């Protein structure tokens, strides 16, 4: 019995037809993702593989332009830098030294214990002689300008753009990952550009993006860079938003919450079994992190990717909605998002629309105010409705905001406050 199968890097990216656009709603990279880099930066870093890949793309800029469906990206810069580049290597902020030059990482709940010259589960942090280092500070492998709705953040400066960046690495390994070719790689296995915090903030400003988004892979693993970039952004009046699985320890989370302005959390299921078998993580610390975010006043939205047969029961939807309402509040937006088969979960069908509608009906009935459906373009559940008068206060088509009926954060029709960060 053979269980072998193949997925090609690039299949995880999307062609210009079919479900690509829908999948982007989960903040997947556009199809040029691994190729995208930064024109104005002198130093970029290629490994041989990506260099060859690049050589096979005759006109990168054209590819970037066509694949982004109108959203700008940045053309590739020339030049190369060695894989071992001290500019990217910064001492980690959360770890503990152990005997015999071992360390224990205290950034995420996994608490990897790591020998000298070894890396943690995320693949982007390395023990060097008993001290622990991030290898991805300012080492950006994807940069795009996206609508903030693509994160998705629906209640945070709607209709604005987010200068979106990622580095390699992730602290979990979801079987459905859309961006596995960067999230499950080490930094030296993807093409990178050097983008220090101030340059990132400047680029966001030059491109009229009111926010920087840390996204696509898992920003927790590039924590130090994210915090430094958020500080540089704030100095220029630019906000920072985080798109994360929320698998982080309390201390680093509390510090992070001082530096950023919104966090969207992918709550991947409401069962430990799923987290263990499909995500390679744990649910409990994620729930604890969410409670902390709310306590600290962080604007938070949730996405729940509905995977057929694995996390789509009525009981799970109900338990999730009840927990959100009683622990985070009814005004926290919850996006039920459609799954498409990829990476290690190619044997399941896309989520039927009826399942998503059932999930929304249950969450609505439990009293959540803002329940959305994602990856379902044109669906009425992409709009924001006033919880009091039920009229549309933000009308959306895909990622575009068509109409807004908000005045100073209130429904223009009935004056009901609409939760969110609007100005």
């Amino acid at each position, binding site marked *: 019995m053979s269980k072998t199968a193949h997925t090609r890097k690039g299949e995880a990216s999307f062609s210009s037809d079919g479900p690509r656009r829908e999948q982007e709603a989960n903040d997947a990279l556009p199809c040029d993702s691994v190729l995208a880099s930064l024109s104005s930066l002198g130093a970029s870093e290629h490994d041989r*593989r990506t260099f060859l*890949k690049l050589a096979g793309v005759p006109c990168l800029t054209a590819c970037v332009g066509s694949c982004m469906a109108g959203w700008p990206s940045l053309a590739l810069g020339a030049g190369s830098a060695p894989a*071992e580049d001290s500019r990217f290597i910064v001492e980690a902020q959360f770890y503990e030294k152990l005997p015999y030059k071992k360390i224990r990482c205290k950034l995420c709940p996994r608490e990897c*214990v790591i*020998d*000298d010259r070894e890396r943690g589960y995320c*693949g982007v942090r390395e023990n060097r002689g008993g001290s622990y280092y991030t290898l991805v500070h300012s080492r950006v492998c994807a940069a795009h300008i996206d609508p903030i709705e693509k994160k998705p953040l629906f209640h945070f400066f709607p209709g604005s753009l987010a200068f979106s960046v990622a580095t390699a690495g992730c602290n979990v390994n979801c079987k459905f990952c859309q961006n596995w070719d960067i999230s*499950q790689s080490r930094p*030296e296995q993807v093409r990178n550009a050097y983008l220090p915090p101030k340059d990132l903030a400047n680029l966001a400003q030059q491109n009229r993006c009111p926010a920087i988004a840390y996204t696509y892979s898992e920003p927790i693993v590039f924590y130090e860079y994210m915090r430094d970039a958020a500080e540089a952004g704030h100095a220029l009046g630019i906000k920072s938003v985080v798109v994360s699985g929320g698998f982080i320890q309390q201390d680093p989370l509390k510090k992070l919450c001082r530096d950023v302005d919104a966090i969207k959390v992918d709550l991947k299921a409401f069962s430990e079994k799923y987290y263990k078998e499909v995500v390679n993580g744990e649910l409990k610390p994620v729930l604890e992190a969410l409670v902390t975010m709310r306590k600290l006043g962080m604007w938070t939205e949730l996405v729940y990717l509905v995977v057929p047969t694995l996390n789509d029961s009525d009981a799970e939807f109900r338990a999730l909605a009840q927990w959100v309402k009683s622990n985070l509040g009814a005004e926290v937006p919850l996006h039920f998002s459609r799954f498409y088969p990829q990476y290690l979960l190619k044997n399941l069908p896309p989520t039927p629309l009826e399942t998503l509608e059932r999930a929304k009906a249950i969450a609505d009935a439990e009293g959540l105010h803002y329940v959305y459906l994602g990856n379902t373009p044109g669906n009425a559940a992409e709009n924001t409705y006033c919880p009091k008068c039920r009229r549309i206060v933000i009308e959306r088509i895909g990622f575009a905001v068509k109409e807004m009926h908000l005045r100073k954060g209130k429904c223009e029709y009935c004056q009901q406050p609409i939760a969110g960060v609007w100005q």
Partner: protein
Amino acid sequence: MRQRLEPNRREFLKKCAAGAMLAGGTHGLPAFFSAREKTRVVNAHDPLLRGAGSSLDSGRLLKMLDRSVQALYATDSPLEAWKKVARPGEVVGLKVNGLAGRGISTSVLLVEVVCARLQDAGIPQKDIVIWDRLNADLESAGFRNATRQDHMRCFGNDTLGYEEDLATYGSVGSCLAKTLTQVCDAVINLPVLKDHGIAGVTMALKNLFGAIHNPNKYHLNVGDPYVADVNMLPPIRQKVRLHICDATTAQYEGGPSYMPQWTWRYNGLLMSRDPVALDYTGWQILEQERAEKGMKSLRALGRAPDYIATAADPNHRLGTNDPSQIEQVEV
């Protein structure tokens, strides 16, 4: 159901000693070994491997290698045995383990004598490739990187990179090193006999983590079932022909890093075509050394390498961990 066999260690090691006496009498290969359908693990020893000093004697190492390969393949000469490992025209990769630097990596001298014998068997230098994960690891283990096509080559996966196709089996999804998929026709796996703080032990099966792009993802649950699943990926399963575990120096605690206080001179080699049987045998040797030093067993510490049993189960069938099916030959 998974086979979990943990025989009485003492009995198992006693059997090894009996095998040693038998083999020692003839200094060749006892005839009955070839008549049985057991998997064979050669456990080679030479107490004088280092003479009076600390460095290995290349002549004695070569002789030990010859005895081992001849015993494993049941041939009349070492050359005959090497000819069964690879044929002229094939590119042979030697997958070494250089992670821990010179202290506890595959020894350069062992690789040299293997290369010498491959050349005797008709494999030209240009068709021999020494490889590991990283160029830096190779260098720190004492190898010199070389990529000229007309010479013996030596480089890390970072030279050619990884396939873009994701190969999957069971719990793993990985991109394989191009050195394995595109350069090598056959692979000789040259791990080291040592402890591993997360995976329990690291020998033949675990050394093939060096062929994938994301080994950091597969140390959970003491590597079970990930180590077994990685070894099921077709290019690994199909190309690896022989496992020679460097046990000249072994380490029973504190691995995979080099911890000199926990190493000892085993002055030997383990050789098999069955990575499961080799790992099982090596594990027992490490446990015996731990017991002699008054240390707890890996099971008691919660890091028994159960991936070895998984590799033997009906879903994997990569070899056997049943001591009654393992033929121990000491030479």
